[in-house]
């Protein structure tokens, strides 16, 4: 098979992409809590009024995701990393991000904010 004889590919870029996705997802969850729990943050994230602060929450997620992807890819593009460990962390962060989109979950954290 040609795939066997090819030079061993580095797994760093894959790990970078996955971990950046996890970081973006969990950051999104944090922005949901902050925007819903702190009025000033909610107003600041209201980038497009007809859509409300959903525009800013998702916009910030995309910025954090892409910036962390570029940074991590620059760090790991020519390296082999502990892929099993990093991909597991990335998946956990992604699932944590999913969990923080559930209203009773982000409401729980909002109630922990003094201003909320």
């Amino acid at each position, binding site marked *: *098979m040609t795939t066997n004889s090819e030079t061993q*590919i580095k797994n760093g870029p894959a790990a970078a992409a996955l971990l950046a996705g996890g970081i973006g997802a969990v950051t*999104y969850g944090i922005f949901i809590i902050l925007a819903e729990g702190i009025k000033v943050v909610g107003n600041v994230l209201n980038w497009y009024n007809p859509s409300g602060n959903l525009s800013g929450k998702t916009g910030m*997620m995309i910025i954090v995701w892409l910036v962390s992807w570029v940074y991590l890819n620059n760090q790991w593009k020519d390296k082999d990393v502990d*892929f099993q460990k990093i*991909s597991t962390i990335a998946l956990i962060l992604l699932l944590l991000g*999913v969990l923080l989109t559930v209203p009773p979950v982000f409401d729980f954290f909002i109630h922990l904010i003094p201003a909320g």
Partner: protein
Amino acid sequence: MLVTFRESFGVLHGLVFGALFLLAFSGGLYALYSLRLEWLTTEGIQEKVSKLKIWAWSMATIAWLTVLTGTYIVYPWYRAKPPQGTTDLSTFPRSFLLANPNIAGWHNFGMEWKEHIAWLAPVAATIAAYLIAKYGAKLANEPKIRNAVAWFLIVTFGTAAVAAMLGAFITKAAPVH
């Protein structure tokens, strides 16, 4: 039989982009799952990978189109505030739902979850598409990367399915006219 301008965008968002995404998912995931050196010939892997790349980027593009049309076209109509003194709230879905405690949960839980969870689908789908494009046939010999891509795709599907299901229920309770 009449479909209004706003309803046509609801159909585009939910029934065209959303349904296309969900329908196309399982075939692509199986193609990725079966991308193994021990199961396929070299020609088989090359042929499958070229189709997988098209599939993955199509899925990611559809996911982006779904959330962008939802957030910036349909959602503003959903959350529009009725003018002072409006008694007929049927064209203001958010206000219509919140005015009735029996169905307010479709906004407080349903729409609140839908609007947030949906945005994770295009992010995870883009990462999966990038990895399929970058590693291509090498995925057949890289089970750890292949499995990680599969898990991200499964999360993509799960988030999109939740958003689609809630969207269908919310539209039934308070459609955007």
